[in-house]
C-alpha cells in the first residue's frame, strides 16, 4: 500500500513500525543515551525507537527537543523515519536538525493503515509512505 503525504524533512529510510496514538518529544520521551522510551507507566515504556519508523500524532513539550534529537543522533539512538498526523514547529526543527526522514498529513489516517510491527518504507523526499503488513 502506497500513501502520499507532505514532506517535513527529506530523506529515505525503512524499518519496523512503532505506532502510538499520542504526541512525542525528543526531550522526555526518548532517552538519548539508550534510544528507549523512559516514560513511567506508558505503553511504550522501555521500548527502543532506534531504527524504527515511529508513528505519532504530533509533537509536544519542551523547546529543548531539537537539542535532545541532536544528542540522540550523535549516539546513533534515533528512529529511522517518522510519520505524524501533523507536525508542529518544535518537532519539525528536531527532525530537520537531526536529518530524520519525516512525513506528515498522509492522505489516509496512519493509525488505521499502519500497525505495530508492519514494515514501512518512507521516501520523504518524494512524500511517499509504503506499508507492508506484518
Amino acid at each position, binding site marked *: 500500500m502506497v500513501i502520499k503525504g507532505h514532506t517535513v524533512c527529506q530523506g529515505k529510510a525503512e524499518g519496523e513500525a512503532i505506532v502510538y496514538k499520542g504526541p512525542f518529544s525528543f526531550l522526555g520521551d526518548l532517552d538519548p543515551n539508550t534510544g528507549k522510551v523512559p516514560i513511567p507507566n506508558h505503553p511504550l515504556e522501555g521500548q527502543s525507537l532506534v531504527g524504527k519508523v515511529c508513528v505519532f500524532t*504530533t509533537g509536544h*513539550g*519542551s523547546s*529543548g527537543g*531539537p537539542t535532545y534529537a*541532536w544528542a540522540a543522533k550523535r549516539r546513533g539512538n534515533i528512529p529511522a523515519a517518522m510519520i505524524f498526523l501533523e507536525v508542529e*514547529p518544535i518537532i*519539525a*526543527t528536531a527532525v530537520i536538525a537531526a536529518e530524520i526522514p519525516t512525513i506528515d498529513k498522509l492522505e489516509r489516517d496512519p493509525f488505521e493503515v499502519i500497525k505495530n510491527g508492519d514494515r514501512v518504507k518512507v521516501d520523504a523526499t518524494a512524500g511517499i509512505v509504503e506499508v507492508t503488513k506484518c
Partner: protein
Amino acid sequence: MFLRDEEKAMLDGHQGHGVQKAMDLLVKLGECFGAERMVKVNWTHTILDGLPYDFFQAVTEGAKPGPRVTLHPGWQPEKWKEIGLTTGPRADIFIERHNQRLEIAKRLKWNITETCAEYLLGYIPKKGDVIAMTGTCMQVANNSLYGALVNRAGDLSTVASAVTGVTPYMGLMLPQNRYAHVLVKLEKGLDFNNWREMHYSCLGYFIGNQVLGYKNVVIDGLPRNLPFEYARAVVISHPVSGAVTLVHIVGVTPEAPTLEAVLSRKPEQTIVVGKRELKRTWEELNVHEGDVVEHVAIGCPHCSIEEIRHLGSLIKGRKLKASLAIGAGNEVVAKTREMGYTQPIEEAGGVFLNCCIGVGDPFISTYYAAEKAVKSSATNGARAAHYQARTMDVAVFLGTEEECIEAAVTGKWEGREPEW
C-alpha cells in the same frame, strides 16, 4: 519561499558559513509550514547551555551583534560548586563549557539574563512585537498574557534567529491564526477559593494533553480577577503535555475581553473540565512510593517577587530537613533580598538558583550532582513534576507551595489529595 536580497545573501554564504547554516534551518522550517517570507524579529530569546556546542559554535561563527537577544536559564556551575553539589574535575568541566558559551554571547552583545521569566525583569513585549523565543513557557506566556507574536519554536531555530535577525512568517505571527480553535468550559462546582498554582497548573496540563497539536485555546469560566501568577500557571502548563502556544482566558488575557472576540466560528473541539479530570491529572503527575521527601523544587517557571515573599512567610523561623531550591532571576532575588523576603529562606537553608528548575535542577540531576543526586522531590507545578519524572528518574510529589514547604521542614510528604 521569497527571500529579501539580504536574506538570500545569508543563505548563499556571504556572511559566513555559520549564518548560512542558520538561514538554511529557518528556510527549511518555513517551507515545512508554508511560510511565504521571513519577518524581522524585534527580539530573540535563546539559550546557551545544553545546546550541542558544535552546532552553537558553527552557527555563531562570523555572526555580528543584531537585534536584542536575551537568554533562557542554563547552567550555574560556579554556584553548584559553591554549594557542594558538583565538585572536583566535573565542576571544572562544567565551568569551562559554560564560560566558553558566555564568551560567544558577550561577543555578540547578548544580554545574559538567564531567566525563563524575562517579563519579571521588565522585558515586556508590546502587543504585536515579533519575537523568536526558546522556552515553551516563555512562548505561551508572552503570546497569551501580553499579546506578542510568538510561534512555538525549538532551541536550535531560536539560535538561528539570534544570528540572522529573522524568523519565518507563519503560524501565530498571522492575525487570522490567533483565534481559538478549542473552547474549554469549566463544570460548575469548582471552588477557585481553594486553588493554588498547583491547581491551575493541573488545569493547563489537562487541556494541553487533550488538544491535538498546534492549536489555540480559549478558557471560559475562570475568575476574572485572576492574579498574574495563577494566570501564568494555567497558560504555561499547556505546552508541557501538548503543543498549545496561545491560551486566551476570557476576561483575563488581552486579546479575549469576551468569548466572541477570540471565537470567530464554531470551535473545532469543545473540552469540558470538571473535578474528575483534574483529580486524574494530579494522580498521573504524582509518581512516587512512600513519603520520604529529600528535596523541594519551586520556581518552574522562575518565581515572582510575590511568590518569594509568600515562601519566606511560610518558612519564617523554621529549619529545613530537605534541601530547597528556588528558581528565580538574579534581579528578582536582588529585590527580594533588599526587602528582607529571602532572609528566612536562606537562614533555614534554602538556596536561590537562576538555572532551570524543571529540566535541570542540579540537586536532582545525576548528570550534574552524580552520586549526590536526590531520589525524591516535591514541587508545586505540573511543569516541573512532568519533566522531573521523565528526565531525572526521581520520585515526584506534586502539591501546593504550603505542602511543599511542610515537606521541606519535616522531610516527609503529608500533602493531601487536593480539593478542586
